[in-house]
């Protein structure tokens, strides 16, 4: 079962892909990217300027040896990361 969070997190990337992130004061290392997709915003509803694009990653990651799946989201307009959901 997955849980929804939506917590702001800090992420380090390499070649545009997340490699580690800090969530609830713990550092998670990304072991494997399971899926990656992009959703463009409904630009006609938003204000002028870049309405932004939301990039999603579903990764296997963990703070130590135990590994779970996590879904991360990067919003280009806000330039910020969220941890959306986690499977454990």
């Amino acid at each position, binding site marked *: 079962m997955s849980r929804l969070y939506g917590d702001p997190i800090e992420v380090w990337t390499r070649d545009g892909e997340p490699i580690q992130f800090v969530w609830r004061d713990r550092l998670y290392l990304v072991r494997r990217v399971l*899926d*990656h*997709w992009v959703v*463009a915003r*409904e*630009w*006609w509803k938003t204000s002028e300027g870049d309405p932004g694009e939301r990039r*999603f990653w579903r990764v296997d990651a963990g703070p130590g040896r135990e590994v779970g799946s996590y879904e991360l989201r990067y919003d280009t307009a806000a330039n910020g990361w969220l941890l959306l959901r986690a499977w454990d």
Partner: protein
Amino acid sequence: MAPPFPHLHVCSAYSMRYGTAFPQALAQRAAEHGMDILALTDRDGLYGAVKHVQACADAGIAPVVGVDLALDAPPAGPAPGMRAERPRTGPEAEDRVTVLARGEGWSRLARLVTAAHRAGERGRPKVTRELVGAWAGGPGGEHGFGADDGLVVLLGPRSDVGRAVAARRDEHARTLLGLWRAAVPAVVIELVDQYGFRDATTAVRMLGLAESMGVPAVLTNAVRYLDPADHQVGDVLDAARQLVPLHPRHLDRTTSHAYLKSTKEMWQVAAKVCGADRTRVGRLLFTTRRLAEACAMDPLRLLALRNDPPDLHLPEIGRDPVPLLRHRVEDGLLRRGLGRDADARRRLGEEMTIIERKRLSGYFIAVAGITDMIRGMGVRCAIRGSGAGSLVNYLIGIGEVNPLDHGLLMERFLSEGRVGLPDIDVDVESARRLDCYRAIFDRYGEDRVACVSMMETYRARSAIRDVAGAMGLPPHEIDTIAKAFPHIRARQITASLADLPELRGSRLGDAGLDRVFRLAERLDGLPRHIALHPCGVLVGNSGLLDRTPVERSLLEFPMSQFDKEDVEEAGLLKLDVLGVRMQSALAYALGEVKRVDGVTVELDAQRGEDPDVQYVPHDDQETYDMICAARTIGCFQIESPGQRELVAKLEPRAMHDLIVDISLFRPGPVNSDMITPYLEARQGWRQPHYPHERLREALRETHGVVVFHEQVLKIISVMTGRDLSFAELLRRTLGTPEGRERVRKTFVPLARANGFDDAAVDRAWRVLDAFGGFGFCKAHAAAFALPTYQSAWLKRHHAAAFFAGVLTHDPGMYPSRVIVDEARQCGVKILPLDVNKSGKDWRVERLGPRVPVRVRPDRLAAGPRDAQPRRREFRAEDLGKGYALRVPFSAVKGVSEAEVERMVAGQPYTSLADFWDRARPSRPVIERIVQVGGLDALHDLRPGGPRWKPGELTRRDLIARIGALERSSASGVRAGPRASKHYTRPLETRPSETQPSAQLPLGFTEHLPPGELPEMTEAEMVEAELEILGIDVSRHVISFHDELLDLLGVVRARDLLRRRNGSEVLVAGVKVATQTPAVRSGQRVIFTTLDDSTGPIDLTFFESVQGHCAATVFGAWLMLAKGVVRRTGVRAVSLRAVDCWDLADLDGLWRSQGIDAVRDLLSRTPGEPAGVGGRRIEYPNGFRLSPYSDIAPAVTPPRRLWHASPGSSGPTAA
């Protein structure tokens, strides 16, 4: 380094309302990415194929062509338990596959597209596996790509196989793929990952499927954008195409990744799909590349004209065309009486040599066959354009203009150096054009002929409509916004808001529509839909469909997907059959002359023997008198305000003068200021000036001024000593600045070597330089001058019939009410609609007894005409005396063709009820007919008098009775005559004239006494006429304002000639024409014509006054203007406008506040001058062009003629 990635699934802007980038831009971007192969796979057709191949050839890339087609929905429903319904919009709405042609597979691809269009509804082609299989070609070939001349099917995520994979129905997917492989030899799985949700998962699973079944898999990006930022345009197009507002559910994408990615980016996609397995990545990219190489085609396969010699697609005519054509021209020489003419024989020899060397004999035979057939159908048919310069065309009867008579040259039409194909243009009656097409198709069959198409593209209004619709604006607001713009390009929208005074005043720029306008600009020029070209017909052999794909036009004509440039590039020969309304008008007028006066007029013969026939000599001075008096409204080519001014100055006295006149009134001659020197030399005010004595011969006919292309050819030929073919080559290069520089480098040394001194060469070069690529082909003008003269002749000698033709076929620039008014001024009486006398179209009625036949052949023998042009007394009001025109049923707004037919067939009628019963008009139509007096005669109504007389029947009573009739008859229109339960056919069918004001002889269930409702006033009548017929029949609309105009001292058109040059006057009238043509100064100048019932008034608004005038000029219908008189000729005058007002507003002001308030308003000083913005387009000879010239302005139709003020139902009838 890895080889470049080839994109195999790319949609360009020619995927209508889907793609966003033009083929050229895509090819250029691919070249920048270092790619060497690029495909174009537009949706539903090969519309962009020729342009793609051209662009690729120019960019040094190998082209691949293909098509993206929708699959016909499988007849069987989805498997039980699965989603039953497909969404109507969005990517799930239909399954699509991509079909690529192998290197030699063009013909099969074209045939498949044609078949797909035949199978689907119009504009929505559909294929099935079997259909693709039928054209896919044989098995074989390496790597599972089929035969060299075959087709390859790509099954991507949008295909039925892809859908099944995405839905995790693996077994179903395997079955479907198996079926595809059974039907088509070459099947490939296409992987796409645009980073959308589940894209990657589906791609991975499809790769697994392909590997397990041993099917090759390739990677594409399903490209539809050039840059990621184009996705907003794509979204708007998705919404516009499906007629829905923007919503994620309707859109084809979730991401902006469908752009032309670079090799590196595509490598990343491959790695994502293959899970970073390097072997699989390598294999996927390698297969993709191998397929691209197998499909790359030689550009010359499609670009037939670039081959040497050109690979032409020639019509087949059954036998060897060369001796056949030789035989035909020999016959023609004898028939035209040129058998002994040495000049004609020499010219013919030259033409035949070129025709035979270019292997075009069959084309001429085929075209002659078509024109013979058209004439055989009784349709008027005239050659136009450069083809009139060819003697062969004259001899085999394609045209009736003898090029030797007018000094026309063949080189403008067909020459050794000319790369393109000859193009024969013929004009036919517009009303019969489609009949001509049908006859051509019937004779040659759809395998050999097809119409040419053209792309309708987005312009300002259409772009605003589609964008605003996608953004969900209310329809009536969209309409208002779009109509505020003139017919400009979409990319001018924002600039025009600031540049054009009438838009500045509208405050549209501040309405928060920035985003709508910005997006609309980005739609600029994108193809919107395909339409039948107005004239092009391809004439080919049975292999035509191997060269071009064909679909159905709206009118069910087979139509090539190529436009006219593509057609030529592909080596297809065409004939232009243009419908010309004037030809229909002439034919109609001749019919009326015959019907009313019993005279046969031979418009195309100058003289003949038949005493009952009236012939039309080309030197009829009475006709020229009328032209010189500028009385040319309604005539072909010479009716515009500018032309009326020019003919008054030029005073044409012969056909050649008309040819010059038509050629002078073109941007070229206007631009290099040839009109003034020509007129001065013609009037004898100045000696003709020749750049060199040896050019006298070439320039004598136009008094030393260069007017025609033919003269340019002769100048070049004389100066360089080379032949006319060479000269034509140089002339065609004069079009661009770089071209002119190249020509100068060739021309100057050659002319010097030929013995001309530096000064002469310099003078001649300046003439050529100024002439540029403009100017007019004399052959074209000669072909035009003939109908011009014929129309003027008919107006002079059979005015009523002429106006009937013009009103019925509407060939000119003026609305019908102007023509009606001109007819009235020419003495023709205008009779109101009458259910018993009106016809389907405008009919001539003779008022007096039959006039003796006016055939006067003896006048021809009156000896040579005077050397001095005579100006005879010309009285326009006598032209049509004794004749009248009857308003027809078809002029009634909203009437259907079937209704008109019933109305005419049922004549005569005995009463309103009889008309209602037998003609069965719809209720609004019969009400309109009553309102404009169609039943006045029948019921003896005399509206316009005192408003109300008790007991007398009025039009309003009749309208009330229509209500009663409808209530008493069964509702709805039936196939048979109307019958009602309460209605019995009256026994007494005598006309009601015995008891005009009595109760209608009907079994009414409701009692309606006559005189119950007041009669219409004169003003109401005219208002109704204008609304329903668009014509003020009973009296001129300006006459209601006579009192106000007299109070203000407004000058009438007929009195303008008596005004001093430079004096300031007030004029008023109905606006009948507004033009913004290209003028020399680069200003946007507005030419407006007002009509005040005594003649036209021509006003010129320069930019300095447009700041305060433009909105009124474009918006008002009745106008009062202040202007300065400018005499432009002996009998011509024009006004430079200073200010203008809406007459309806002034009228309201006068009624509410009195005449002084009006005078105060008229004496206002205009505010700050604010002109028209926009960068001028500069030509090297000093010609500057406003970016807003030559666009049709926004026209506001009149809604009400007078402002309703309390207590007044309109202006008082005088």
